[in-house]
């Protein structure tokens, strides 16, 4: 790994460039929430997004994008979600159910394997996975896999993961409040974190 050019690293998104921003327009999937799009531009395609919260919060934020992506020929993969995705509610929010693919009850290793396969395969438009603990090395592998497959790689992780260095292109902290979901940008590709907004559901 001594001869990797700077340009290559930039292209891969492996270099984080502070306020300078990236020259190339990044491929993003609009979130469907005006205030959120204004803040982060959209869900980065071919990259990891981490949603950090106390109790797996944040799925509602994804619904407009998932609904749109379910109209493509690719899967929306749920890798061992903590609860059951409620089909009538998904359908009511416009998700085409035939594109929904759920992996039930899998060990940590199997989940990791499945998420990596799915992100890499280009058969999935979005891959969602729930992890309590995740080392940095597998996190990096997932990021590379998402780059290869060009999907939205969404990881739901506990708030404690905030201290871990992460190769994810986007990291959001989600806090449910009486008014809606409070979203804080911890990190985004090509810019500082720090912005926040409130999404009324």
């Amino acid at each position, binding site marked *: 790994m001594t001869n990797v050019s700077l340009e290559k690293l930039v292209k891969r998104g492996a270099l984080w460039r502070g306020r300078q921003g990236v020259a190339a327009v990044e491929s993003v999937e609009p979130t469907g929430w005006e205030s959120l799009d204004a803040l982060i531009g959209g869900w980065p395609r071919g990259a990891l997004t981490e949603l950090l919260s106390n*109790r797996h919060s944040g*799925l*509602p934020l994804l619904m407009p994008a998932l609904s749109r992506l379910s109209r493509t020929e690719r899967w929306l993969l749920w890798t061992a979600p903590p609860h059951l995705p409620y089909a009538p509610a998904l359908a009511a929010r416009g998700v085409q*159910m035939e594109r929904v693919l759920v992996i039930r009850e899998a060990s940590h290793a*199997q989940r990791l394997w499945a998420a990596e396969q*799915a992100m890499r395969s280009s058969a999935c438009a979005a891959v969602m996975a729930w992890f309590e603990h995740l080392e940095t090395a597998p996190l990096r592998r997932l990021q590379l896999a998402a780059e290869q497959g060009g999907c939205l790689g969404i990881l739901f992780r506990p708030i404690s993961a905030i201290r871990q260095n992460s190769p994810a292109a986007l990291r959001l902290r989600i806090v449910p409040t009486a008014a809606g979901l409070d979203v804080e940008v911890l990190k985004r590709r090509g810019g500082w974190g720090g912005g926040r907004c409130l999404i009324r559901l």
Partner: protein
Amino acid sequence: MLWTALYFPQLPIEILTVGLDREIALAISRSHRGRETISRCNAVAAAQGICPGLPVQAALALHAGLRVLPRSEADEASALQGLALWAYQFSPRIAFEPLTLLLETGASRRLFGGLEPLSRLLDRELDQLGHQYRRAVAPTPTAAGLLARTRPGATAQTPESLRRQINDIALAQLTRNPEVRALIDDIGLNSIGECLTLPRAELARRTGPRLILLFDRLLGSVPDPRPPWQPPDRFEQRLELPGEITHHTALAFPAQRLIITLCGYLLGRGAATQHLTWRLEHREAAATEFRQGLLKPSRDAGHMLDIFRERIERVRLPEPVVAMGLTVTGWLHFEEQTADLLRNPSDAEDGAFLERLRNRLGDARVQGLSTVPDYRPERAWRWCGPGTGQGDDTDERRHPLWLLDPPCPLGVREQRPDYGGRLELEHLPERIETGWWDGCDVARDYFVARNPAGERLWVFRDRRSGGWYLHGLFD
């Protein structure tokens, strides 16, 4: 007609070493007039100075670790049958000679774009199968077999070319029949060429009709009918493993041989299959059987092996594996899909991805979701096969994205349900009261609630028991 002969000189040894990840010194013994001698040995044994003809005792003195096994012609025959199944993709006419497979490739070579491409394909697959072999081509099966044994690599497409190439071959190579061999010894001629220069009548007088018939068949002047071989309707192959295999990954090698054989057979039949049944035999424990499913009918060995690697991970081995079998009973007529795949490459990718998931995790754990028209939330959905999910747009936007299955009973404090603190109930209740017809009736009032942490919850009060339950999460 043009016959391609494949001669497998090391087959007696190879059937003993299949699937062995390390090389061991192996030899086959032969008993002749009460004396046990080495008849064949592998390269590892040869490197220790062991060679054919050596008495077994002497061989063991040279290398104590040598494994000497008696030759098993029944095992060789069944190995040759397995090779015939594989070779069925190259020719519908297959015949056998000892350690030799004879394929009529005069008709089928056109399918492969000529003899050269066909030969290259044969070479490539035989390498993957892990067999040493010698190949020759001749207008008659007898000549092809003879050339493969004595002039490997020879190609004689015309009778003239054949005569040129067999002239120098020793007469004794022509047959193993002891009576004919005795005859040959008597006439005092050494090579086939010497015999052929004699006038036919003279030769007939000196040797009798049997050798004449042999020459006529060799050169194709009389027909050389071989009993036609028909592949069985059911593919069933078994490999005995010389070592005990304890690791999943090590099973991929013998599996590859079985899969390549299967795919040759399927190609020959113009078929493809969706279900492979594997059987792993152990010394003591009952055999481990499992099925390998494919999303689409296939006969692609590389693909099948990939799926096997995923599938075998999930198999629990009670003991090391000593033999491995593959059975395929059902297949479908294969439809060429290449055109489709070119048009829509994601289809192929998609299928392969799902297959990998399902083989590694099991079908039951990779599922789609469907809505079901029912007012009871726990019955308003069901698991379904991937890609078959239906969504009735119920317009139930008030319902949460997450369902707890089953509902989680909540503690009650000061007459209010409690979940991470006292719950504030937000909306007027939604009453769900159904199910008397199927014995699963419910009478519930559902509320959207919020706990002190700000989480939005879907709770209900059972109107019969008065108990509170958490049934869904909004965030």
